[in-house]
Structure formats: structure tokens, C-alpha cells
């Protein structure tokens, strides 16, 4: 099994993402925007990493959503392949309409729009936990259900949609992750961007396409932590520095789900 990690002009988190996937035991390759779409179809799953695809021109994710590589991703998603979008990748997935998937393709029904407070960029370690019946998605089913540490690092992470659409998102079980405090309690203070319903991640009805705003690959090893007791204790201990951190659970779950979905397809 192998995962294609898409790279558009302006993507900037592809290397960490590949490493995090490989640490979970799955082969991952970079798939650049210039790749022949026919060759890009030869993957079992796709990850759209963070960054600023096409410099976020027009708006975050808008141009990448129409890239020819996304035709391949859309076809793969419709065939049941796993697709994970992280941060800018999540914005792209919403622009394609794959997530929440309540409307036609490339007619977005929701968006990760500029953060509250004037679109101010925020970079902060957050907790997010999966919500709802995790059995609805092989990806969510492979998670422990506990809050996971990740880095919210974005200027456009506020879920917005019409009231009708938000209701459809809630009633359709499209909310995959909400921001929480470290004990897993969903509080207003835990939301870094004013996101509607405290949403950190959305998933489609089939459960195979996940759009996740915070970055798990930026909290996958202890060495990525800010200086603090845990990191200081690991100083001069390579193994301790390379120990997995919270976000690695996302990639472990992705690997498990990939095995399950590939066997089923």
C-alpha cells in the first residue's frame, strides 16, 4: 500500500507529512502538481498537506480544488479511497465539495474562512477529539477517542456555512473533530479561530474523506514540542526526543484504516 502526498505550488508541510506517514508504517510518496494524472491514480490513499497551495490566490484552497490532480483525488474518494486533508489540504477538500459532501462537486457548501478577529493568523498547540459514532468511519474507528494534541497554524480555519448547512453538517454526522481542552471538554476558550460548532475537522458521509484543520504532523514527535518540562527531560536522549507525540495517533489511525479499506475495496 502506498499513499500519495500531494504537492501544489505553495504547499509547505509535505516532508513532515511523509515522515509521519512512514513512521506509521506506510509507504508515502510526494506527488507534484506536474505529475501525469494517469500516474497519480496509482495510490491507495491521498493526503493533502498544509501550506498555501497556489499561494491561496483568490481564496484558500480555491485554485488547487480545480487542479487536474484533484480530479484524481475526487475519483479516488468516490471509489472509497481514504483522503486526508490537513490545514490547507482541508480547505482544498471543502472547496472541492468532497467534505462535508452535502452538495455537488466543486460547489462548496461550507468553508474554512478567515479566523474570527479579522483573519488573524494563529499558531498554537491545541487539543481536538473525535466526536460522534466513530464506527461510521474506518479512520475514526481506529482512534482512541481521547483528545489529541496538534498545532493549529492558520489564518483561515473558521468553519462557516449557512444555518441550513450547519444543521445538515450536525445532523449528518459530518463533524469529525472538535476543539477541546486537555481533558476533552469542548469549550469556547479551546476554539482558536471562532470556528462554528467548535469544529476542527469534518468528514464526508461515507467516512473516507477527512478535512482536519490543525496539523498532526507538527506534533508527532517530542522534538517538535516547545521547550518545556517534557522536552527538557528528553534533552541529550535521542530516543526520548524521537518518541511519538499526540499527533502521531492520526497517522497510526490512517495506516490502520488504510489496511481496512484497501482490504474491503
Amino acid at each position, binding site marked *: 500500500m502506498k499513499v500519495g502526498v500531494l504537492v501544489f505550488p505553495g504547499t509547505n508541510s509535505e516532508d513532515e507529512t511523509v515522515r509521519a506517514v512512514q513512521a506509521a508504517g506506510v509507504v508515502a510518496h510526494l506527488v507534484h502538481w506536474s505529475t501525469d494524472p494517469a500516474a497519480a491514480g496509482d495510490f491507495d490513499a491521498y493526503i493533502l498537506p498544509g501550506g498555501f497551495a*497556489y*499561494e491561496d490566490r*483568490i*481564496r484558500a484552497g480555491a485554485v488547487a480544488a*480545480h487542479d487536474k490532480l484533484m480530479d484524481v483525488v475526487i475519483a479516488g474518494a468516490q471509489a472509497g479511497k481514504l483522503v486526508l486533508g490537513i490545514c490547507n489540504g482541508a480547505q482544498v477538500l471543502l472547496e472541492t465539495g468532497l467534505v462535508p459532501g452535502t452538495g455537488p462537486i466543486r460547489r462548496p457548501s461550507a*468553508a474554512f474562512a478567515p479566523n474570527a478577529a479579522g483573519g488573524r493568523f494563529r499558531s498554537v498547540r491545541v487539543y481536538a477529539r473525535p466526536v460522534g459514532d466513530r464506527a461510521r468511519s474506518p479512520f475514526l474507528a481506529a482512534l482512541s477517542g481521547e483528545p489529541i494534541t496538534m498545532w493549529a497554524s492558520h489564518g483561515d480555519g473558521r468553519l*462557516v456555512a449557512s444555518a441550513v448547512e450547519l444543521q445538515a453538517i450536525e445532523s449528518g454526522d459530518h463533524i469529525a473533530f472538535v476543539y477541546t481542552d486537555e481533558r476533552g471538554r469542548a469549550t469556547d476558550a479551546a476554539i482558536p479561530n471562532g470556528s462554528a460548532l467548535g469544529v476542527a475537522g469534518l468528514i464526508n458521509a461515507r467516512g473516507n474523506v477527512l478535512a482536519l484543520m490543525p496539523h498532526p504532523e507538527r506534533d508527532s514527535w517530542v522534538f517538535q514540542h516547545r521547550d518545556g518540562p517534557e522536552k527538557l527531560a528528553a534533552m541529550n536522549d535521542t530516543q526520548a526526543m524521537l518518541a511519538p507525540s499526540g499527533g502521531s495517533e492520526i497517522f497510526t489511525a490512517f495506516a490502520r484504516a488504510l489496511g481496512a479499506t484497501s482490504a474491503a475495496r
Partner: protein
Amino acid sequence: MIARFAVSLTIPDNAAYTALVALRHLGVDVDRIERSDLFEFEGSFDVGELESTIRTIETIFNPNKHRLELRPGAEPLPGEVWIGERDEPVATSSRVTVAGRILAGVQSLRRASAWRLFSGGRTADSATVGHAVDSLLCNTAFQRALYDSRTSTDAAHA
């Protein structure tokens, strides 16, 4: 009173070029695009003083690469669409600030992006602008598009 200023690039506009290429890819009949950032100020102020202040706020206006124009009308130009956030939090206060600068007399500020499309050497017609709006320029989940005396996307969220 209301004053609208448009800030556009005097150097090549890569974002406009990207939009041009993307729209052509999507089948929109367009051969040139001009883009500008719109700032709509409301309050009691001297327009000349406000313009002078804006010219000193480098995050909005860089004289080495920007053009600043006062837009007299309340509507887009022919071939133009204004894209703004549907529920943009309008800055309303007796002390509206931009990049930390107090704008004297300004009580509210709204922002939008203006895209002006040209087709066949002329300003694009309403149908072409509408095609561009629907296919790429506007995400109706959080944006509204104003063109040709219409707010095109309100119906979707009525």
C-alpha cells in the same frame, strides 16, 4: 458619508493572472483580469485627509507598487464583481484602526476584492461575470458577489 478606495498593483498582478488561467481552464471566456482591494469607509471624515492617511499605511498601500483610487460610485464598474465576506465583522467604533493606525472620523470599515473581467477586448458582459463568479471567484458559503447591480448569491442563502 461613505468613501470607497481601491488599491491595485502597478506591477504584474500574479493573483489576477492565476485567476485568468484558472477561469479559462474552467471555460470562462475571459482574456484579461484586473484586481483591486476595496476599502469602504463610513463615518464623518475629510476624504482628502483619509486618503493621505491611507497612503502612509504600508500594509495597505506601498507607493512602489500600488495605485490608490477613490471610487466615486456605490456599484461595481462594467465587467467588475465585488467579492466580500457575507458576514464580515464590520469594524464599528468611534476609533477604527488599520494596522494600528487610528482613522479619524471613520466609524466602520468593510473590505472586498474587486475583479474586473475583459473579454474580446471589452469589459465582460454580465453572463461571463456570472460564470466566473459561480465557477471560481465566490464561495457562497461565506462570500457574496455584487455585480451588474445584483447581489448574485443571496438566493442561495435566502
